[in-house]
């Protein structure tokens, strides 16, 4: 199997990504992410296996409480590929590999310009548990919006 990581930036890759799911909720997230990509707000890194896109992660530069961070805008793995562990990905699942890519990129960026944390907002409590268990994220939940934030200090 051929694994390849590539990226979309300064473009709207909606036509290449929207077919990855039939779920309306996920389609809406992908549409929003693609708009962000077109506006240069986010860069979408995508993993292909044998030229089929199987997962993606959208990354942007942001600040939270004035702390510079790399924000994981969205992470998605095509349903057929979820929970599979791949020897080619150092015996990791695709989601774990994509988070590892974001951490690796963050450490590279940190050497070039100010960056202190990696931040993500988990989509549900199951994913929240997975991120905390696998990557030791620290959790914070806002009082007003009840939005969960997960942080890693770089």
């Amino acid at each position: 199997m051929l694994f390849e990581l590539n990226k979309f930036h300064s473009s709207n890759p909606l036509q290449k990504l929207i077919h990855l799911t039939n779920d309306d909720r996920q389609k809406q997230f992908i549409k929003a992410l693609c708009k962000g990509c077109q506006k240069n707000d986010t860069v979408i890194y995508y993993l292909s296996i044998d030229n089929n896109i199987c997962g993606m992660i959208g990354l942007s530069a942001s600040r939270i409480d004035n702390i510079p961070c790399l924000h994981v805008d969205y992470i998605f793995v095509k349903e057929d590929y979820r929970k599979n562990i791949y020897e080619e990905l150092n015996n990791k699942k695709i989601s774990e590999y994509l988070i590892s890519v974001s951490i690796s990129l963050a450490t590279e960026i940190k050497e070039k310009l100010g960056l202190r944390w990696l931040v993500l907002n988990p989509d549900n409590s199951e994913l929240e548990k997975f991120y905390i268990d696998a990557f030791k994220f620290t959790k914070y939940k806002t009082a007003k919006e009840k939005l969960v934030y997960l942080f890693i200090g770089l």
Partner: protein
Amino acid sequence: MAYIYKDGKVSNVSISNVKLPKSLIKKVDAKTETKEIIKAAIETVKKAKVAYAF
């Protein structure tokens, strides 16, 4: 920019206005076990048999 799903729609939420407790900031900055996690993540990317096309 965070995306949230509410009332059947995805909308953007700016994270820059979020105020964090000082104790949480200290906790994130001081967490030593994340150093190992970062090291392991970098190793994963290095060891993965993935072609990087950018």
